[in-house]
């Protein structure tokens, strides 16, 4: 047993997954990950000049054949978005951790938030289908970092591990050795082994072709199917059904921890795989309830997506400004009781 922080558990998870390269740039509240990994002698570690370098160095290391990771928060994530799109197009497996804080802009640097949900899904340009996991406990930070590496190798894409400043800085007593996992190894050749030409231009077997619309359509179908098939193997969520209620709370990250205090009166659905969204599972849970409530630390980013898959009206409890008080959440839940059921 040891007392560690979410960010440290993420670092431990990366090491357990066989990560051999870390590049990152300091940013609150993600910096503890690089502080921890800087001491790890079994990996190549670099504190890069900026987040753009961090993501591109990780891409280079991954192409050279090692498991690579970078971690940041919202502003750094924005700088990494072009690189993330590159890694999707060029099929580069890696893990990008985003420990969220309040934005936009410099926002509230030390205050936790969940404002990058949309950014994770749609932040890079063009169409792509990212896989994203969101742990809500310290031991989950460990487990899902490992699974993020597995999903990255499975899908040959950059997998996002989303976290919030609360979970990242949360200290819990954990027994990491109890976590069971298997590791997925690299299925792709590495540089020097005849990998050929890697480009993020639309290409066929490394030969760019940027004029043929049918080739793009073919590519996008293939990418969509590849990401869907890979994600199917990582359907992580927790569904605590309360038979005595018709009210369902959907919450993730720190909000799921807060919501777990109300399971005596509510059912709780906690998605861990945020993207691709667990449409079937959410729709099924929504069908079993009349009132769907999403608690999140933003103005309703995931709520809108849930509404489209739940096919029901979704009420949002927005917890804003970087603090989350169970009493305030309870107040909001009580107020919703006055609303008509759908």
């Amino acid at each position, binding site marked *: 047993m040891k007392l560690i922080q979410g960010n440290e558990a993420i670092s431990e998870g990366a090491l357990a997954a066989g990560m051999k390269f870390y590049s990152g740039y300091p940013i609150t509240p993600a910096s503890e990950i690089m502080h921890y990994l800087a001491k790890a002698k079994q990996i190549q570690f670099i504190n*890069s000049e900026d987040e753009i370098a961090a993501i591109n160095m990780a*891409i280079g290391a991954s192409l050279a054949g090692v498991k690579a990771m970078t971690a940041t928060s919202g502003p750094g994530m924005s700088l990494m978005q072009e690189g993330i799109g590159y890694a999707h197009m060029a099929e580069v497996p890696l893990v990008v951790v985003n420990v969220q804080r309040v934005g936009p802009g410099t926002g509230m640097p030390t205050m936790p938030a969940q404002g990058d949900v949309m950014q994770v899904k749609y932040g890079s340009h063009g169409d792509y289908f990212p896989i994203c996991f969101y742990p809500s406990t310290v031991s989950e930070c460990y487990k899902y970092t490992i699974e993020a590496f597995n999903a990255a190798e499975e899908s040959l894409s950059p997998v996002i591990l989303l976290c919030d400043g609360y979970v990242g800085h949360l200290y819990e007593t954990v027994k990491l050795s109890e976590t069971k996992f298997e590791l997925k190894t690299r299925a792709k050749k590495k540089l020097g082994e005849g990998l050929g*030409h890697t480009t993020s231009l639309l290409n066929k077997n490394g030969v*760019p072709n940027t004029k043929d619309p049918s080739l793009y359509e073919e590519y996008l179908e293939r990418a969509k199917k590849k990401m869907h098939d890979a994600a199917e193997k990582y359907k992580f969520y927790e569904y605590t059904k309360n038979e005595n209620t018709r009210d369902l709370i959907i919450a993730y990250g720190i909000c799921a921890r807060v919501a777990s205090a109300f399971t005596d009166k509510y059912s709780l659905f906690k998605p861990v795989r945020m993207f691709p969204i667990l449409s079937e599972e959410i729709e099924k849970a929504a069908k079993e309830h009349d009132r769907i409530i999403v608690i999140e630390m933003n103005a309703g980013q995931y709520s809108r997506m849930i509404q489209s898959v739940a096919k029901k009206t979704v009420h949002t409890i927005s917890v804003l400004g970087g603090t989350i008080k169970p009493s305030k959440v309870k107040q909001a839940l009580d107020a919703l009781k006055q609303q008509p059921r759908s």
Partner: protein
Amino acid sequence: MVDMTCREFLEYVDLDRERIWCPGCTIGLMFKQIAKAMTELRIEKKDVVAVSGIGCTGRTAGYCSFDSVHTLHGRAIAVSEGIKLANSNLKVLVISGDGDLIGIGGNHLLHAARRNTNITVICNNNEIYGLTGGQVSPETQTGVETITTPYGNPYPQINVLGVLKSNKKFFYARSTPMHLEHLKNVVKKAIAWDGFAFVEVKSYCIENSGRRQGFKNSYDMLQTLKKYKIVGEKDDLNEDEIGIAKREG
């Protein structure tokens, strides 16, 4: 004597790919000298990786017959540093243009040079953003008309040698596609250098810069490179000199 019939260098070139380079462009001449330098150094294809960014020169990686990476705009050096840290046995050749390496990628150049990462950067400095139609670059000469400086470029060129020289240890070479044997030799020395090596290949772009400056053809532009004098290895190079400036550190 130079063996003009030597075709061995073609081993490093993928001849099946269609080139995007315009008639009169010198990137092909530079690429040939890089391949020749590799031939003479007997570099095995499994031991080397070419990395390019975006731009006309950025397409070079795609024409190599060994493993290569075409990165995002400006990120060739960052990707190369990741490759080198992950596998120090690989020789990494960055081949890209001035806009890519010195403009948008300037921060990575600054820091890779400071860290003295053991990679070879070959910069085709044609003093323009050619692929995008001829916009001003940090290497465009003062007063030159480009599509984004229609009244003449108000700013001076960046001094890359000066930037590199600010480090304790550095390797900087300058050559041109008019001095082919010289170009090949400095590339060989740059590849053999233990540490960060930068080769600046002073060239030009007839299609998207030269014609706006009143040049009639590529040959006339090539003549402008005659001004350079070969000086060998020194501590510093004057503007009109080509050679090597280095410090062991």
